[in-house]
Every structure is written in C-alpha cells, then in structure tokens.
C-alpha cells in the first residue's frame, strides 16, 4: 500500500466517524470522560428517540451533568462518539439570565432577523409570561426567572432540549406547576428532551422513560406508560417508585 492510498483510507475512516448515522434524536456510544484519575463516564451508551422525554436519574456527583454538558457541546468526550441535533438548547439549574437585559432581550439572545421579537413574545406567552417582556430579571420570582430560561430555550424551536436539574432550586409548589407547564409545552413544541434530576417524583411525573445512572454507565431503564392521573397516584406509580428507589440503592427492606 502506498502512502497516498493509506492516507485516503484514513480519510474515509475519519469521514465515516463524523458523518451522521441517524436524522433525529440522540446517539451516545461508549462515551468516556475522565477528570484526572477519576473516570466519570465509563463507556456509556444512550439513545433518545425523536420527541421522547428521557429522565436521567442519579445521585449528586454520579456524572449526570457531565453527560449533559457533553451532549450540549460544552465539553468534549475523551473517548466514544456522540451524535446530537445541531438545533439544541439547554436549560441550566440556575436561570442564568443576563441581569442587564430586559426579559424580552434575554429570550432573543440567540435569535437573528426581524421576527425575533415576535417569536420571543410568543415563547413568553407559551410559558405564561405575556406582559412581562419589559421587566428586569432581578424583578422576577424564582419560578418566573426559570420560565424565562425555558422560553429562551424554546424560542429557537430546537430538536433537542437538555434540562440540567432545571427545577431543583424551586419550591415544591412552583415545581409542580413547572411540571404541568413542561407537559403542556410538549404538546406544542416537538423536541427530544433529556432531563437530569435527582428527584424520583419529578422523574415519574414527566418521563417517557427513566434511566438510572450508576458507576459511570446507564443502569436500568424504566419505560413509563402511565396516564397523567396514574402518574399522580396509582399502584403502578408506587411500583415504579419502589423500583427506582431500589436502583438508587435506597430500597426499603419492608
């Protein structure tokens, strides 16, 4: 084999690695991420289908947020392969609003074009914040600020929305309202979603599928096919809850 041929072959291999394999959803293959000596993600595999809402459940420090940051493109893997839609948005635990821009400008941050304001107004209406466009972020309550962050993510009509413990800092009542809002938004906005949380009840309330993370990999997966009423209270719900708690190592022996 000549040098030229070998070079050409290497290029085709490289091209195969960067070419997308599917059109929608998320594909994570044998991803490794290490910080110094510590291996946080150890050959992790995950597939998210189009319009599917996957909840990634796990205790603090298990690598949930690391995986999410890899999917968002904020960090690069040390090994393996990640494939995500280019149109994606992320909602962080804190609202991360720009305090010096009014609410409307915070939502139009990633938008260009003459219809940016109109789109932003619509996104704000979707999260029930119509009429608050001129407010400063410091004037908002915690729940309102997080809804603006949600509107900022929705406004570009992303194909993938990554949510990093988005409601963890909110009070219990506001959190339940936010869950209702997420369910409502899923009817109007069609995107795959990955929600990272350590809250079992939140996982049951929202997920199409719950995956539990342990030792840097995805452990058990639990498809959730319950109606809204059954998610709130039912035998199936309690069984799912017990199974999730067992996966997290919190099983009650009784």
């Amino acid at each position, binding site marked *: 084999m000549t040098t030229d041929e070998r070079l050409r072959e290497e290029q085709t291999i490289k091209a195969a690695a960067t070419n997308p394999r599917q059109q929608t959803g998320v594909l994570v293959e044998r991803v490794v991420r290490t910080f110094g000596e510590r291996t946080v993600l150890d050959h992790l595999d995950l597939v998210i289908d189009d319009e599917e809402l996957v909840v990634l459940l796990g205790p603090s420090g298990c690598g949930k947020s690391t995986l999410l940051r890899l999917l968002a493109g904020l960090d690069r893997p040390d090994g393996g392969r990640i494939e995500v839609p280019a149109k994606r948005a992320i909602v962080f635990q804190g609202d991360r609003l720009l305090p*010096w821009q009014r609410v409307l400008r915070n939502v139009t*941050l990633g938008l260009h074009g003459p219809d940016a304001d109109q789109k932003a107004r619509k996104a704000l209406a979707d999260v029930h914040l119509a009429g608050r466009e001129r407010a400063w972020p410091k004037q908002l309550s915690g729940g309102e600020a997080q809804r603006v962050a949600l509107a900022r993510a929705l406004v*570009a009509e992303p194909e993938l929305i990554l949510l990093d413990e988005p409601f963890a800092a909110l009070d219990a009542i506001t959190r339940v309202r936010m869950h209702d809002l997420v369910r409502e938004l899923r009817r109007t906005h069609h995107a795959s979603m990955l929600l990272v949380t350590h809250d079992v009840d939140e996982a049951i309330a929202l997920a199409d599928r719950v995956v539990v993370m342990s030792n840097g990999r995805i452990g058990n997966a639990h498809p959730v096919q319950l109606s809204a009423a059954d998610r709130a209270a039912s035998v199936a719900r309690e069984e799912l809850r017990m199974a999730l708690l067992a996966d997290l190592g919190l099983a009650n022996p009784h």
Partner: protein
Amino acid sequence: MTNLSVATRPDARSAPAAAGPPHARDVFLPADSRRTASWAGLWRRLHWPLGIYTTPVLLLALWEVLGRVGVLPALYAPVPTDIASTAVQLWNAGVLGPDLAISLQRAGLGLVLGLSVGIVAGVLGGFLRRGEYLFNGLAQILNTIPLLAVLPLMIVWFGIDELTKVLLIAFGAGVPMYLNLFAAIRGVDHRLIEMARATGAGRWRVVGWVLLPGALPGFLVGLRFSLAYSVLGLVAAETVNADQGLGFLVTQAQTYLQTNQVFVGLVIYSILGLLADQIVRILERVLLRWRPSYEAT
C-alpha cells in the same frame, strides 16, 4: 364570646410572663401611619436639603465665621467670600477665563488620549490572551510608577511644551482605565458566557450583549479613577512649568504671596473633581438601571 376569651387570657398567660423577663417585641405598621403623608414629604425635603454638599457647605460656613472673627489670618486662609470676590475680579480682569480654558483644553486632550489608549488596550487585553501578554506587564509596571516621578523624565523627553502636559494627563487617565477594564472583562460571570454560547449567540453577540455590559460596572470604576488622576496630572503638569493655565495662576500667586488667588485655583481644581464624580454618578444611574442598588435611609 369575645369578652370570655379576653377574660380568660390574663389568668392563663400573663402570670408566667410577669414572672420572667419581658420579651422584646417588634411591631411593624405601614410607614405612613406614623405621621400624615404631606408632613412626611415636607420632612423629607427639609431633612438634609444639601445632600452630599452638606459637609463642604458647613465647613465653608465655619471657615467664614472663623475668618471674620479673626481666628484665621487672611494671609493664611482668606475667608470664602473673599476667595469668591477674588475669582470674580480675576474673571473680569480677563485672567481667569483664558487660564481656565487652556487648562480644560489640556485636561480634555489628555483624557481623550489616555481613555482611548486605556479602553482599546483594556478591550484587547480582556478579550484576547495575546492582548493580555502584550499589555498587562507594561500596565502593571506603569501602575507602580508615581505620576509625579515621571514628570522630570517627560520634560527631558518631550520638552516643556503642551505635549508633556497632555501626555502626563493621558498617563494618569490611561493606566487605571486599562487595569479596571481588563479586570472587569475577565470578571464577567463565565456561566453567563457559557449560556450565551449554548443558546446560539455568535461571537459578536457574546461580546456586545454579555461581555461589554457585564464589564460596565468595572469600566465606570476605571472612569472614576481616570478622571481623578487626570485632574492630578493637570495640577502636576501646570504647576512645574507653564506660562498660562490654572497651575500658572497658582504658582504666580504663590510667588507674590497672594493667598486668595492660590485658593481660587484650588477651589476650581476641587470643583473639577466634584464635577467629574457627578458625571460618573449620572452615568451609573443611567447605564446600571438594571442593578437594584442599596438605598441607604
């Protein structure tokens, strides 16, 4: 029913309370209930009507009284009214006006030059690592050299003309602007920058919407220092070698022991400093509207 509950309470609660020490209690009522609204408004207007000028005005009044009584000799410290009338005399004689104009021109030129260099270098240093390597060491060295120590060198290099004076003022204004702007840009919350990038804001959006507004509070701190040091540079430059300008007026008056004229110069310098501070305050109020600041009572 009501009577009954009132009647039973003293027996049940007040006896043990009376035995122990009294508990400190706070009662909060609407602010207006203490006095009528119009009286409160009038009170607020009469209360500290001079604002931040209270202490200077009180000092001037005390000075005037002490001077009139004869405690302060006129040669050492002429009374404020005397200084004011001297200023009017100098103005009418056509001395003060041109001197003030030439001083303001020097300060303005020096400020424009110093701020331009400071802002350009600060922005480059803040945004680019190469900029940091180019400017930071130099700025730190220059920052430790006192303004007054550079003056003799500048005279040797640039002569005793306008250039030396303008450069000295620019030096005083540029260095603090660079240092504060650099620190302000580097100090912008990296989580906001990360969020903006993840949201799809391009490079220029991140600069224009996140980094520059985020650095604005630090920029205004730099501006405050720059204005103060430029006045300092103005005084230093004019006092040592000048044939016109405020500093010349002061030096000349000192030679002839005309203390009242010396004071006219000093008063004008201090008014310039006060004006500079007021300008920055107005800028802060306009540009930092988003920041709810502490309102002292």
